[in-house]
């Protein structure tokens, strides 16, 4: 079989695009989900496919590599790789170019490696699938590859199983597999969205380096416009299965033509201008005071693991304090102790002058009227069997009896406060969008008129435009009701936009804390500097 695709650098490769998609329509079970999608990629180019969930960006990428789900089908249009129409190739023919000409870096490194095969076996597989037979030669190449993607002790990694590696290490292995045969095109499908920010930056840097080294083109699928801004030559913005706008990254970001692109840009916290300093919030009385907090968790082997050690901070009434850190930093554990859901193993917490750890039974119940927690995942924090009315009304029923009319008035009032239409009162959570659910969850938290809200990654699960709306809502509520926020997040850009003061946590300890402007503009510690440098979008900000 003579296959022009196996010679990606053939004569004339510079003159024709590496990938050319035109009029692409993909349907699931006969229902089209993308419409008339068309764009081109030159060899060695990085093109970012940007969109929110449901925009069709992943479906488009899957179509390019010929791996649509079983119920998905290309119904119209064509996909040309090096000039050849591949969208109607037989599976067997497609197998021969997958891995060698087009390859994939998947989203979720945790689940993307076979748990019962060694790393070595899985990387070697790429070579074996494409005709290499000499075991010793393959082994040597795999070891070199593992070293190249930045894994220490490649000999050891070769023998290890996926569960013995961290998320970042697994993603490096997956990159090694994708680039092993120096393909012409790599599809990177949200390659870092499951990773911590600092790891995310290192992985993206690695992909960049290898791309430059091998002349590989990268189709970067991402929901994060800031990542696209940093890494892509050209950006394709998708929404609802259609391309909204495309063009060179610099131009598109500097002068977006479409309203949707402008909104995306405005709503991406890392790309929009830093929030203005918010004077007058600090220096008032103290709402939350944490002194030397220690939290231990028992481990499987009967020992104990210190998740939080010696954490201290205080939050002024009416202000927002952010706890920011990567996974395992102890930020959520700290927040849960403040709400009284965990008893501290050491140290002291004072909320409105009360120590939640000292409260039992009825006192604890009364304490909870004053401080409420809003969860990350609005899908899980509302009872699927309750209507919104019941969910928002329930806290009122838990305390002193109110007349039905009065309860009704309070529910409507708080619903209006979070800008939800009263028609939604009778709906169940399943019939709502993510943003509506999170508004409902905030309404439930507010109906008791608490003075403090603890927001645990409360906007992390939402698409950027929705995220921006909720952040604006939180800001308004704070102004109008004088609320104090303890804002837990891994997302530094969001933190910068909403907080007055911030504590940076790592490994259960506070590395640095202070007013937001000070910590972000002039970080004092190495770790804080690293974290801030890792915020995507900085390349554009300059």
């Amino acid at each position: 079989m003579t296959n022009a695709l196996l010679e990606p650098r053939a004569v004339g490769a510079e003159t024709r695009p590496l990938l050319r998609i035109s009029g692409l329509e993909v349907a699931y079970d006969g229902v089209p989900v993308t419409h008339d999608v068309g764009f081109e990629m030159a060899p060695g180019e990085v093109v970012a496919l940007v969109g929110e969930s449901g925009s069709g960006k992943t479906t488009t990428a899957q179509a390019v590599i010929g791996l649509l789900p079983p119920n998905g089908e290309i119904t119209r249009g064509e996909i040309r790789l090096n000039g050849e129409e591949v969208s109607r190739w037989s599976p067997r023919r497609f197998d021969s170019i997958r891995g060698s000409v087009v390859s994939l870096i998947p989203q979720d490194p945790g689940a993307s490696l076979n748990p019962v095969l060694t790393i070595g076996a899985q990387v070697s597989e790429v070579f074996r699938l494409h005709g290499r037979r000499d075991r010793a030669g393959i082994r040597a190449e795999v070891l070199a590859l593992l070293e190249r993607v930045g894994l220490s002790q490649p000999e050891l990694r070769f023998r290890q199983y996926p569960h013995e590696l961290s998320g970042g290490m697994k993603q490096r292995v997956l990159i090694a597999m994708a680039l092993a045969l120096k393909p012409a095109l790599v599809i990177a499908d949200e390659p870092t969205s499951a990773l911590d920010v600092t790891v995310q930056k290192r992985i993206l840097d690695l992909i960049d380096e290898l791309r430059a080294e091998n002349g590989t083109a990268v189709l970067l699928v991402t929901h994060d416009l800031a990542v696209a801004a940093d890494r892509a030559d050209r950006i394709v913005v998708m929404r609802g299965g259609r391309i909204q706008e495309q063009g060179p990254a610099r131009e598109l970001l500097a002068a977006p033509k479409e309203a949707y692109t402008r909104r995306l840009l405005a709503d991406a916290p890392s790309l929009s201008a830093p929030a203005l300093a918010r004077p007058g919030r600090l220096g008032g009385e103290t709402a939350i005071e944490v002194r030397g907090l220690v939290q231990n968790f028992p481990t499987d082997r009967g020992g104990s693991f210190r998740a939080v050690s010696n954490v201290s901070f205080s939050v002024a009434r009416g202000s927002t304090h952010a706890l920011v850190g990567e996974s395992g930093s102890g930020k959520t554990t700290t927040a849960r102790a403040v709400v009284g859901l965990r008893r501290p193993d050491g140290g002291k917490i004072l909320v409105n002058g009360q120590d939640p750890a000292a409260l039992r039974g009825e006192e604890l119940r009364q304490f909870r009227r004053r401080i409420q927690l809003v969860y990350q995942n609005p899908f899980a924090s509302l009872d699927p069997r309750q209507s919104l009315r019941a969910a928002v009304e329930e806290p009122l029923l838990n305390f002193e009896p109110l007349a039905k009319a009065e309860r009704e008035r309070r529910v409507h009032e708080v619903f209006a406060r979070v800008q939800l239409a009263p028609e939604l009162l009778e709906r169940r959570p399943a019939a709502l969008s993510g943003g509506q659910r999170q508004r409902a969850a905030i309404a439930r938290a507010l109906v008791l008129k608490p003075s403090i809200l603890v927001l645990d990654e409360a906007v992390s699960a939402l698409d950027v435009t929705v995220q921006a709306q909720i952040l604006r809502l939180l800001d308004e509520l704070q102004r109008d009701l004088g609320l104090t926020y303890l804002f837990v997040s891994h997302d530094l850009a969001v933190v910068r936009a909403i907080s007055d003061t911030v504590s940076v946590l790592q490994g259960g300890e506070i590395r640095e804390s202070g007013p937001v402007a000070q910590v972000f503009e002039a970080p004092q510690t190495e770790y804080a500097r690293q974290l801030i440098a890792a915020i995507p979008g900085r390349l554009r900000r300059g």
Partner: protein
Amino acid sequence: MTDILRSFPSAASARLAPPRFGWSRRPPLGLLLAWAVLLVAAAWAVAPEIFTSQSGVVGIPSEKLQAPSAAHWLGTDELGRDLLARIIHGARYSLSGAFLAVGVGLVFGAAIGLTAGSVGGRVEAILMRIVDVMLAIPSLLLALSLIIILGFGHAQAAIAVGVTSIASFARLVRSEVVTVRRSDYVEAAFGSGGRFLQVIWRHVLPNSLTTVLAYAALQLGWAILQISTLGFLGYGAPPPTPEWGLLIAEGRKYMMAAWWLTAFPGLVVILVVLAANRVGRAAERATR
């Protein structure tokens, strides 16, 4: 310490199973048929006289061991009793037995599982250990042990079958309760001032019960099978009760001469069990 990013069902899971657009809301034909079978069986149990004019107990000796014909659609037995009439009259025993069995399993299993799941601690450890032990004994042998105590009879057999399913009900209820209790919305309910029993009643019970009720529907078919097995072995309702298992046991003596005596009751059992399982599975799917 929740690993927030990784635990959240991200776009990844959504992409693996794209939404099935264009899927009709009409229940599939198989499910409709299953409901029809169950309704007919229930009607037989409630009012057998409507479906057959012939007796299930008294036969016409001159018409014994007749093959299926227009007069006797499914043939007659050694005493000239109409087989169809016997099957129709027998529905009462099989279905009431199955409901009794599932009721026993559900009530006691739910009580144990709910207690273990919501109280937790040592109580949970002890209860679930006992459940583990019950699961180590094959259900038929456990049922036989109970029958030695309770004696032979229709209700006894049903209760024995029900007791053997307590363990699996308890285990399911507990795991549901534990899942629901760990959910954010239950924590939020406590967080907004809910009292223990209020929260259990408002959130934990209704949310864990849906799955359990679907499982109960599935258990119905299993119970019919088990009760007919005990009936076949002769531990259930005594002759001349037309219980389905017993019909097959009695028909066995005429295996050579009258195949219909064993074949038809067996087919009816299979149909009803299949229908119950189909409905149970549909219910299970609907609760997810």
